[in-house]
């Protein structure tokens, strides 16, 4: 067979193999993305065509007080979740990795279980547990604050409690990633360090922490992206209230698109959030990499 012939056959096979993905990607991602970008420059309703209005949606958005409230709430939520969940996951992973065999598998499963639940079930569980009148956690809250608190109707409690629910729900996955990372650190290194005279504290800070850092950085970045996209928990637990204290950017987008029928404006919100997530996560990942190199 000639060289050209063989090359043609290889290309055909390659094309055949990537075609399904390319098709799905184009139809369900590339085209909708293009539509959202295009839509954000029009005054279109959710369904149907609109007229080109240039940057008017963006100008309106940057003058929208509610947008800044939402954005602030988003960053507040990130602050409440990203680092705490990583620290908690790390502590759990360190503890679980001390266990052996079946016991380790069992405990790991228990920690992973909430992650399997759909968000509606998660919020249902916590709504019950935190119910103002019957919630089994209310005595605990009463013991600390002196009286029961309707947490999802209290402007100070709402975001931290959504953060608690979110951490409980998603922590298992982070534990899993960190366990995998811990298992990748050879046992020899700990033995060598023990012979070198390292205490368990020193073994953690001088071996575990630096060698686990790539995984920790990954967890932090994934969490940042995930938590900036906060919507379901807020929608189901507090619906943005009270006094917009849990109103977040995606919530605003949802309202504009699906309740107020402002497709163009909602698209502009989506584009801005997308931009923020890209910038912040790239920035964070780069910062973490520099931190690791030092």
């Amino acid at each position: 067979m000639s060289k050209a012939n063989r090359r043609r056959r290889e290309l055909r096979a390659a094309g055949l193999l990537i075609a399904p993905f390319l098709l799905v990607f184009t139809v369900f991602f590339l085209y909708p993305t293009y539509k959202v970008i295009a839509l954000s420059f029009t005054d279109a309703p959710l369904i149907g065509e609109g007229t080109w209005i240039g940057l008017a949606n963006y100008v309106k958005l940057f003058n929208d007080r509610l947008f800044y409230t939402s954005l602030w709430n988003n960053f507040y939520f990130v602050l409440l979740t990203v680092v705490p969940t990583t620290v908690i996951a790390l502590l759990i992973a360190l503890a679980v990795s001390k266990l052996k065999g079946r016991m380790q598998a069992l405990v790991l499963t228990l920690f992973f279980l909430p992650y399997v639940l759909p968000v509606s079930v998660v919020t249902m569980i916590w709504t019950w547990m935190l119910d103002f009148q019957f919630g089994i956690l209310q005595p605990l809250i009463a013991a600390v604050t002196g009286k029961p608190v309707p947490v999802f109707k209290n402007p100070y409690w709402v975001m931290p409690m959504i953060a608690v629910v979110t951490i409980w729900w998603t922590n298992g996955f982070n534990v899993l990633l960190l366990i995998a990372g811990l298992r990748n650190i050879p046992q020899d290194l700990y033995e060598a360090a023990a012979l070198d005279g390292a205490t368990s504290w020193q073994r953690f800070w001088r071996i575990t922490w630096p060698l686990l850092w790539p995984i920790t950085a990954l967890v932090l970045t994934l969490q940042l992206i995930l938590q900036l996209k906060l919507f379901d928990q807020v929608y189901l637990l507090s619906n943005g209230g009270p006094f917009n204290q849990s109103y977040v950017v995606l919530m605003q987008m949802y309202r504009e698109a699906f309740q107020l029928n402002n497709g163009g404006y909602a698209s502009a919100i989506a584009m801005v959030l997308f931009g923020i997530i890209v910038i912040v996560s790239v920035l964070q990942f780069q910062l973490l990499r520099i931190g690791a190199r030092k």
Partner: protein
Amino acid sequence: MQDTGVHLRDVTKSFGAVDVIRGVDMDIPRGQFAVFVGPSGCGKSTLLRMIAGLEDTSDGQIAIGARDVTHEDPADRGVAMVFQSYALYPHLSVFENMAFSLRLAKRPRVEVDEKVRRAAGILKLSDHLDKKPAQLSGGQRQRVAIGRAIVRAPDVFLFDEPLSNLDAELRVQMRLELARLHKQLGATMIYVTHDQVEAMTLADTIFVLQGGHVQQHGAPLDLYDDPSNRFVAGFIGSPSMNFFEATVAGHTKDGITAQLAGQPDQSFDIPLRHRPEQGTVLVLGMRPEHLMVTAAGGMRVTVDVAEELGGVSYQHGTLEGGEAVIFQQTGARHGMHGTVQTVTPELARIFVFDKSGDRVR
């Protein structure tokens, strides 16, 4: 208690119901190079790790110098260990790897610098101090691991199969370097290997381990010349000793006449002090280098494979009874495979073992 070196008294180790080390006694004098050798699973690495303190000792006593260290922390035993995998800290430079223990001990900067540079000088690593382990070759990594041990100036160096990840050529080279290093430092060293060539070339004393027991210990050539059982005889020496079943056909003035089971027309007069009764079944051990090709009568070997190494060649074949035979030829180069050769052993160098494997002298 003894004042220097490493001393084990009736040391045992079990993992659950499995006894891995079953009562080991040994004395390694200060400054000696001791080698633990044995097949995989014999417990040699476990024993080393017990001396290091990385494994608990179930029973017995381990002493380093005059100190009983049986239940001390690894760091307090005055030992340093070189791991098979090197166990270098991948995120630290060569310098920091070697300085690790000193940093933990919070030694002054000048002292750290001086000690690390001196060790690096000994090991020819001075040009690589800023590199990360991943940038080094296998041999260099090995040297860093040794350097990390040297910096700690331990009473005892422990090596756990340190050369088994290197290629053959580098292994020979590092072997020589280790021998030189031992002379230079004069410290007690304990070295674990499954490679009997490493054991023979490095050791002052070899401990042959099998099944959690020390089968025999002594200077390398003593083990070669005078193995105390069939296992040691088979393990020490390369290629390993030939074993043939035989029966005692009669007694001579100073020994026995043993008749080969695989070739009954052959019998040998072997000098022995303790003469087993006539008819006793024995095992005769003959080293490949002690079998001579002869034109006269002898053991007839059908050669099927010849390993020609240039200087010497090893002829592999079978006796008429089907028993495998290896014999060595020096200088001669003739294609022997497929032919039937006649060989005779040096009578004074036949080893006699009883059926349970113990040596009959």
